[in-house]
């Protein structure tokens, strides 16, 4: 996509007109400064966004957040709202990691007070929370117990002793999506998920210990129990192999069924089915079940971190939930254009007054934002989800030295436990966009306002 194809609406908003390609059903919009746009047009993000604008039943705009980057099918950072009766549901609009999301916990410690304990604590958390890649985790669920998790989500984890009832109040949808049907989840998916509850996986997933480095909105920060120098914990993971298999199963099924519904799409990875069709409804129910698995996964991980914290700090070791929010999911929501199915692929729900958690890279910063009315008017109640990659993993491995990176992080006061040097360099700060600039855009656009900036002091990676 050439930059000249985009029309400038604001300093932070650009539009690709519907006339750009004959199969577009709506325009496409991207939130970015001109400098960011220069980088975005270097990969295929915007071509993929135009493909999204061709989906049957799409309403308003196909939207890309400032952290947008090339994915497969949808770009990462993409949002699409579709009509419930005339529109489709596309597993590619949610992604393979269904309900990949972020959870924020707050501690009673300050960064300076806990500095001597930090290396031990990072090690203890790493021992409690395995990556689970190709090994599995400590829990092995039989089909009956797994189905209870798929139906109940975080609530089932709490019932089983992994947390407190109050935790559920601070999770999107209280940690349980309605309509989840374990019977819609295949045997393969059950098998892949049976030993993965309580594991973070690899790639960009992590547990991070942060300090609140800056408060932008004192009132909102107080509402969330955040204050300068307070230590908080970010958890970033999703539905692991179970969700990956649900997406694989239904993409295959929809690739095979689209012709029956007369659907043609520019990329097979956008395979879809009418939302009201049997295929569409079964995927929606299976996706909800996988989303519940992810909510439960973050709840079980929370219990592990709480154990480590209690072990280190005793009576002063309580960790309280701030919020938990998904950034890969589809939900039926009411917006100004009516009731629609909102696909969020690497985009965070940002309803008015709702906490929005934006994880950055391990050496820079993460943000706590709060949803604003502009999100409801412009982006179907959605915000960005992270910094967004700019460097391929291959290039990162060639250009970044693991020893130098470890030293740099150590000099920056960050204690790191990583499963592999390869995984560490692939997630190096320079592989990502400037998160401060990304967050500035959604703040300026009135989508989500800045509440607090978090800086890492401990990183645990799979």
């Amino acid at each position, binding site marked *: 996509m050439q930059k000249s194809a985009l029309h400038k609406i604001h300093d932070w908003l650009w539009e690709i007109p519907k006339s750009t390609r004959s199969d577009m059903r709506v325009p496409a919009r991207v939130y970015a400064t001109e400098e960011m746009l220069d980088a975005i047009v270097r990969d295929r993000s915007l071509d993929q966004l135009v493909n999204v604008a061709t989906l049957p039943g799409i309403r308003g705009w196909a939207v890309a957040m400032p952290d947008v980057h090339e994915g497969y099918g949808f770009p990462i950072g993409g949002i699409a709202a579709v009509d419930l009766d005339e529109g489709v549901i596309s597993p590619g609009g949610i992604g*393979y990691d269904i309900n990949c999301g972020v959870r924020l916990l707050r501690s009673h410690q300050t960064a300076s007070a806990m500095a001597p304990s930090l290396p031990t604590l990072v090690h203890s958390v790493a021992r409690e929370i395995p990556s689970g890649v190709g090994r599995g985790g400590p829990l092995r669920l039989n089909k009956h117990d797994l189905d209870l998790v798929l139906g109940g989500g975080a609530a089932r984890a709490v019932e089983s002793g992994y947390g407190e009832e109050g935790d559920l109040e601070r999770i999107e949808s209280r940690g349980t999506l309605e309509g989840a049907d374990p019977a819609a989840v295949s045997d393969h998916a059950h*098998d892949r998920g049976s030993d993965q509850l309580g594991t973070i996986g690899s790639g960009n997933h992590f547990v991070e210990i942060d300090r609140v480095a800056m408060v932008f909105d004192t009132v909102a920060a107080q509402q969330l129990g955040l204050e300068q120098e307070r230590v908080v914990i970010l958890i970033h993971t999703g539905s692991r192999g179970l969700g990956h298999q649900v997406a694989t199963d239904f993409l295959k099924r929809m690739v095979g069924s689209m012709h029956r519904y007369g659907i043609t799409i520019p990329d097979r990875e956008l395979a879809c089915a009418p939302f009201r069709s049997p295929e569409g409804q079964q995927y929606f129910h299976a996706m909800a079940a996988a989303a519940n698995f992810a909510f439960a996964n973050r709840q079980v991980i929370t219990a592990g971190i709480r154990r480590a914290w209690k072990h280190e700090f005793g009576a002063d070791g309580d960790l309280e939930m701030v919020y938990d929010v998904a950034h890969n999911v589809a939900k039926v929501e009411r917006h100004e254009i009516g009731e629609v199915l909102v696909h969020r692929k690497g985009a965070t729900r940002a309803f008015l007054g709702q906490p929005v958690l934006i994880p950055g890279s391990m050496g820079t910063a993460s943000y706590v934002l709060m949803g604003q009315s502009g999100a409801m008017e412009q982006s179907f109640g959605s915000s960005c989800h992270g910094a967004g990659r700019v460097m391929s993993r291959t290039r990162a491995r060639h250009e970044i030295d693991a020893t130098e990176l470890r030293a740099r992080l150590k000099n920056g006061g960050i204690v790191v436990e990583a499963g592999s040097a390869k995984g560490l360099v692939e997630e190096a700060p320079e592989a990502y966009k400037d998160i401060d600039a990304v967050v500035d855009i959604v703040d300026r656009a009135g989508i989500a306002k800045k509440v607090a900036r978090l800086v890492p002091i401990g990183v645990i990676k799979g």
Partner: protein
Amino acid sequence: MIEVVEHTADIRLRISGASIEELFRDALRGTMQLLRPDLDERSVQREIAVEAADRTTLLIDFLNEALSHAHVHREAYDDAVFTTLTETRVVAQLHGREARAFGDDVKAVTYHEAEIRQPRPAEAGPHIWSVTIVYDI
């Protein structure tokens, strides 16, 4: 032949082979290499059968089926013997070894950009089949 091609967030492999069988086999090897398995000595065999509407979809579905078995059984496959390989159906016996663990996760093999290309004209030399595959990792 397996080549790694740049992709901003995920992994893109270009696979080529002198025959469709070789293309499928090298694509299987490339997929398994991405898992970076820590291999055990014990060898394994697993039979899989997949049907699809066309050859490209068949390849992606075949790789996803193999990937699912690799994850579920903790195995990595480095060879396949095809008893049936048509445009729409593949039956294959996968050969490999048990894995103690995987170094990396591969979530799925995507259909994005995948298109098995026709052989070059005979005068260009050996027939080369090729496909580009994007993996979600």
